[in-house]
Each structure stands twice: as structure tokens, then as C-alpha cells.
């Protein structure tokens, strides 16, 4: 089973590379180079902070677009091109297919995030005219960004398993936005008088991913590193959340009739 999942994952990664998904890196590098060169004129001595804020924010934004637009196309394209019939005529389960596709895109995002992280580190060396401690201290924050993207990819896959690409993209984007408002949802739940409303908002708070756990860009720009317990808990949360979402995707996808 693992071999089949890995084969599908490898194929999904190759497909993403063939679809020129990694070309976004060229645009990222151009953006970062321009920022590194010109930001010195505008930043009032804050080049290092701005390079980190800018680089990691761009990394998250590019990652979100890849997770959404590539994620929703993973399953949809296979159905649209009818290649899914060829896959399921072989001894491949629908669960293996979904998990393989998911892991393939996660691998694409990992390569993307690692290369972007290296780009930000190089830009820091350039603006600092030498080694800068931020070159190392930004990596835990990059690690958290990757897990945020991993959750979002699973959400995109879930929506694409039962909805059209446009609607899936919209819904996933909404989840990304609402996921950053989680603390407000919790605050709303505690401040409401009605029990039903409180239960509703509490349920929403726990059902939707809490991306605030992965927002460490601003402190990272000041050289702060998240604590190991925080990182470990955030990774565990991501793994559990992804497991739930992928399981739901498999259930929905298994019920789809391709005849």
C-alpha cells in the first residue's frame, strides 16, 4: 500500500513540476532581489526586518496560491481527463489515491518553501553584508508556514472532492481567511449570551483550522524563535487536522460514482 501511495505522490510531484508550478520561484527570486536592492532606500535602516517580513509573507502567499490552485486541480483534472478510470482499473484504492495526491503536492510545497527559505537567507546575507543570525532563526517560522500550507492543501483537496474548481478555490480561500480570525471566533463564542450561539461559534472555532498557531512571521523578523513545545504542538495539530480532513475527503471521494 505504501508503495502505491508513494508512486502516486511521486507522479503528482512530477506533474506539478511539468505544469511549471515551480516557475513561481523565479518570480519570488525577482521580487526578493528587487526588495533587497531597493528597500535600503526606503526602510530607514530596517532592511533586515523588512526582508524577513516580505520574504516570509510572500512565501506564505505564493504557497497559499499553489495549495489552492494546484490542490483543487489534483483530483478534478484526473476526473476531467478520465485518467481516473485508468488508475482505478489497477489495484489502487481511492484512499491511496487521495493520500498519494496529497503527499505529492506537499512534496512540491516542501521544495518550494525550502528554496524560498534559502532565497530569503541569501537576501539577508546580502543586506547585512555578511552573516546574520536571522539566517538561522527564521527557519522555525518557515517550518510553521509549511505546516499551515499542508493544512490548506488538505482543505483544498476536500472541497475539490465534491465541488467545482471555482467554488473549491473560493471556499478554500475563505477557510484561509477565517482560519486567521479564529481568536475572534473564540472571543465571540465566549461573549455571546445565547447558549445555542455559543455552542455554534465554539463548534466553528474547533472545526475550522486555527492558523494563528502558525503565524510567527512578525516575531521572526525580530529574531524570535518559537518554543519547541509550541512547534511540536502545532505540528501535532496539523497532523491530526490533516488526518481528519483527508479521511473526510476519502469518504466523500469513495462515494462518488465514476460510471
Amino acid at each position: 500500500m505504501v508503495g502505491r501511495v508513494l508512486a502516486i505522490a511521486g507522479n503528482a510531484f512530477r506533474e506539478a513540476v511539468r505544469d511549471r508550478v515551480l516557475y513561481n520561484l523565479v518570480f519570488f527570486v525577482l521580487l526578493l532581489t528587487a526588495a533587497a536592492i531597493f528597500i535600503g532606500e526606503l526602510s530607514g535602516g530596517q532592511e533586515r526586518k523588512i526582508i524577513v517580513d516580505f520574504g516570509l509573507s510572500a512565501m506564505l502567499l505564493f504557497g497559499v496560491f499553489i495549495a489552492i490552485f494546484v490542490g483543487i486541480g489534483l483530483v478534478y483534472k484526473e476526473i476531467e481527463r478520465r485518467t481516473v478510470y485508468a488508475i482505478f482499473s489497477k489495484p489502487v484504492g481511492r484512499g491511496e489515491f487521495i493520500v498519494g495526491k496529497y503527499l505529492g503536492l506537499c512534496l512540491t510545497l516542501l521544495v518550494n518553501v525550502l528554496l524560498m527559505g534559502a532565497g530569503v537567507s541569501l537576501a539577508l546575507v546580502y543586506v547585512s553584508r555578511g552573516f546574520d543570525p536571522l539566517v538561522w532563526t527564521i527557519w522555525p517560522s518557515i517550518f510553521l508556514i509549511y505546516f499551515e500550507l499542508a493544512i490548506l492543501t488538505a482543505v483544498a483537496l476536500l472541497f475539490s472532492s465534491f465541488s467545482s474548481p471555482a467554488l473549491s478555490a473560493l471556499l478554500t480561500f475563505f477557510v484561509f481567511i477565517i482560519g486567521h480570525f479564529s481568536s475572534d471566533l473564540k472571543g465571540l463564542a465566549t461573549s455571546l449570551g445565547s447558549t445555542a450561539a455559543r455552542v455554534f461559534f465554539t463548534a466553528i472555532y474547533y472545526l475550522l483550522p486555527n492558523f494563528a498557531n502558525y503565524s510567527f512571521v512578525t516575531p521572526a523578523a525580530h529574531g524570535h524563535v518559537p518554543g519547541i513545545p509550541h512547534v511540536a504542538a502545532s505540528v501535532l495539530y496539523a497532523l491530526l487536522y490533516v488526518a481528519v480532513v483527508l479521511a473526510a475527503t476519502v469518504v466523500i471521494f469513495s462515494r462518488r460514482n465514476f460510471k
Partner: protein
Amino acid sequence: MTSRKRHRASWAPGGIIVLSLIGSILVARWLDMRRPKIQTEVQQESLYLTGNTLKRMSLSFNGLVADWYWMRSLQYVGGKILNAQGPVQLDDLGQLDMKLLAPMLDVATTLDPEFMEAYMYAAVVLPGLDEEEAIRITRKGIAANPNEWRLYQHLGYIYWQREDYASAGQAYSEGATIPGAPPWMQAMKARMAAEGGSRDIAREIYARMYQEAGDPNVKEMARLRLLQLQSMDQRDVIRKLLDIYKTRVGKCPASWQEMAPLLRAAQLPVADGGPIDPGGTPYKLLPNSCDVDLEPGSSIPYK
């Protein structure tokens, strides 16, 4: 299709792109030239979004949005200084109408509460415009970063500027208790009480500011203030020398050359027989009042 027609067809889209692009640039320039100037009231319109609202709306990009507001603040101040009549010091911008600066720095520090350079800028630039806002933003920074002794240094600087030496001493004293604070913070408390308005205190404050500022404009401002203090000391020495000359000769010198031996003996920097200020410009002799002053073209701030 003949090969000539094919060739023409392949060049046509390229030609359309180039010509249309040139046309669009020309039209854009024409529109720019005829666009009515934005009224000052519109330019100075208050920010619609508060820092807390922006913090929510910026998702996890709050650091980036804070940077944006920080750079806008710098551009705002820079633009106002460029448009001002005559030289303006960064810590003396009261004459310029800059009511958006405080809200912009407030937004930047709300979005990124650890943005130390923005707090420093607020402490240096805002007192000239709105002392209370400068104190409020600095105190907000202290509440968000209770372990940052530099914020107490900024607060002390604001109080020192408004000549409230007791509050300034209190701020330095509170900052001195924070682990990692340098020993001079504690010393400043006692010095504020004893010699709050002295040049030595001013020199100490600007020297620290010069060492710690990241923003080149703040650094330059501190450097000029240090030169100004040096120039004040030099002018005091020159005034004493003028008194000595007047006592000896019975009149004021008509030119610096007449008192060249005295200037040399006092080891003042001299060029072409006359003393020069720390910026390299000769001092102006005022023979009628037997006094010395800065030349109008000097780089040393007048006030």
C-alpha cells in the same frame, strides 16, 4: 498565404504592442500633467483604519503591513521636509503640518508591537508635533515590551525635551532596573535632577541616540545636535577671547585676523585666519556687538 504576407502577419502583433504601449505612456503622461492637485485637506485626511482593525484584516501579514506604514511615515516626513521653506531639523517639525504622522506610527507599532525603530522615531520626531501622542505611543511600547530599557530611554528623552527633568529622571530610573540596561541609565536619573538643562546632559543623550539609531535620518539629526553643542562650546570660548581682546585693545576686532594669536592659543580650529564651526564653515564676526555667530550657510542647526 505568400511568404511575404506571412512575414508581415508575424510582425503585425509586435508592432501593435510597441505602438500601443508608447501611445498608452504618452496618454498617461498627458493625464498626469492635467490632473488637478490633490487638496491638502484630502491629503491630510485621517486614516480610516485603526491599528487594531488592520491587525485583524492583515491575517498573518501584520509585520509586512507594519513595514508599509513605517515606510509611509518616512516618506510622509521626507516629503514634508523637502517641500518646506529652508532647513528643518527632524526633531523640530512643529512648523510643518503633519497630523498623519502620529496615526501612522501608531498603526505601525500596533501591528508590530516590537517595532523599536518606530518607537524611537515617535520619540524623536513626534514631540515637535504632539508631545502627548509621543508619550502615549512610547508608553504603549513599554506596556507591550516591558523588558526593553530603550523605550524608557526614549520616554526620558521626550520628558527631557519638554524640560520636565523629574519625569525624565524617573523614566531613566525605571529603565535602569530592567535586566541588561546599561549603567549610565541609573546615572542619568541623578544627573537629570542635578543638571537637567545642561549641555553635558544633552551631549550624553544625543551621543546615545547616535549610537543606537538605525534610521540614518535620526542618526544624522543626533550628529548635527552633537555638532551644534560643540559649536555652542566653541562660541562661548570665542566670546571670552573677544572680551579679552576688547579689554586689551579697547575695541572689538574688525576681522578675525586681528585676534589670530588668541584663537591659535585657544586651539580652536582655524581656516584663513578665522575660526570655523564643526561643520567647516567660518564663524561670522559681529564687530558692532562684539559677538560671534553662525554663518547663514552653515550646516550647524541654528536652534
